[in-house]
């Protein structure tokens, strides 16, 4: 088939194309993914028993505010990466700033605490299950977000896979915070971030395989 014939074929009956497909795909995917994450959290782990008491602590809200801000930036980044030729925007700066804030406050708390309390501040009561729980909760969001990305046209598969994983990781933290009773900044700065990084690395690894088009 000659190129001119291909052009005619592609244009014939092509019709109008919907707008904001990327945004709508991600909205659908993240809706389902978040539901899946909530189900896993509720069934396998359960909401923290001191939920209503903890609500009065500022740290309770910080545990949602930071990952929600991160998720917003990650979603922006992912949508841009899914559309060829778009600049990635300032989302990486936002994510870096959030991470630095988390690490800095963790370090500050740790350094100001008496030495005998540092072990508790770092390990809490659940350091050994925290990252794997977050990774587990991230699975439905990860699959859904990858599905959304599959319908787009990312030209940088490793970065795009990582950004898609970051969407899953940050949302998983939000959901996990409903269960996890840990409230110390050093704990969160280490184990939450580690848990979040698992889907990020997974995304970067499978991006080049899954996101080809």
């Amino acid at each position, binding site marked *: *088939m*000659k*190129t*001119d014939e*291909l*052009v*005619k*074929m*592609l*244009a*014939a*009956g*092509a*019709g*109008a*194309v*919907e*707008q*904001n*497909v*990327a945004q709508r795909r991600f909205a659908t995917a993240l809706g389902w993914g978040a539901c899946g994450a909530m189900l896993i959290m509720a069934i396998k782990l359960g909401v923290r028993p001191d939920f209503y008491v903890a609500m009065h602590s500022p740290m309770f809200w910080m545990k949602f505010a930071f990952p929600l801000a991160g998720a917003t930036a990650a979603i922006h980044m992912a949508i841009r990466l*899914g*559309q*060829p*030729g*778009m600049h990635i925007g300032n989302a990486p700066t936002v994510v870096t700033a959030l991470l630095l804030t988390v690490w800095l406050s963790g370090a500050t708390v740790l350094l100001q605490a008496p030495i005998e309390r540092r072990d508790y501040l770092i390990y809490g009561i659940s350091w050994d299950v925290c990252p794997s729980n977050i990774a587990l909760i991230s699975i439905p969001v990860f699959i859904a977000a990858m599905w959304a990305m599959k319908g*787009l*046209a990312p*030209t940088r598969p490793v970065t795009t896979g990582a950004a898609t994983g970051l969407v899953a990781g940050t949302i998983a933290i939000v959901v996990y915070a409903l269960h996890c009773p840990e409230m110390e900044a050093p704990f969160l700065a280490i184990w939450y971030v580690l848990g979040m990084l698992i889907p990020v690395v997974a995304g970067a690894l499978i991006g080049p395989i899954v996101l*080809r*088009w």
Partner: protein
Amino acid sequence: MGTSDEYPYVGRLAASEDRLRNLMVLGLGGDNRAYEVFLKDLSSHLRAYFRKRLARLPGEVEDLVQETLLAVHTQRHTYELDQPLTPWLHAIARYKMIDMLRRWGGHDALNDPLDDEQELLVSSDTQMMEARRDIAQLLEQLPDRQRLPIEYVKLQGLSVIEAARMTGLSESAVKVGVHRGIKALAAMLGR
């Protein structure tokens, strides 16, 4: 005094971007005639762009033009109307070129980090060549539920309703068949 004659490069470029962008926006709005002109213009730009970069693989140029046209078509929902068109087109063309070079096993031609996206629309080449792989033959390999809708709607120019009557498929099955079939063709070319 800055006239476009003094900066032919810039003038030509802005003209191409504006012209192609207008055609593309009309096309996305449902104007198939404008969309056809857009694809035809684009194919000339792609041909010149690839021919310059694939000096050692001249036989691949036309195939790559066709593959990129299919990619532009199947991914056109990822173009946002308020964005400039050139970076979008360039990113797709470059992605498809790198993909093709990878299939050839040579990465050397990728060492072009300064590849300027503006170069895509600077030159054009209407001298069509024969593609090595014939899309008409690939079309034969598709299952009937995709092949027949494409033949009736896209090649013979029938309406979806007519194609539905001819094939016995529902109208939505005809649309889905066209959509999936074109995507399958794009995937076959990328192999």
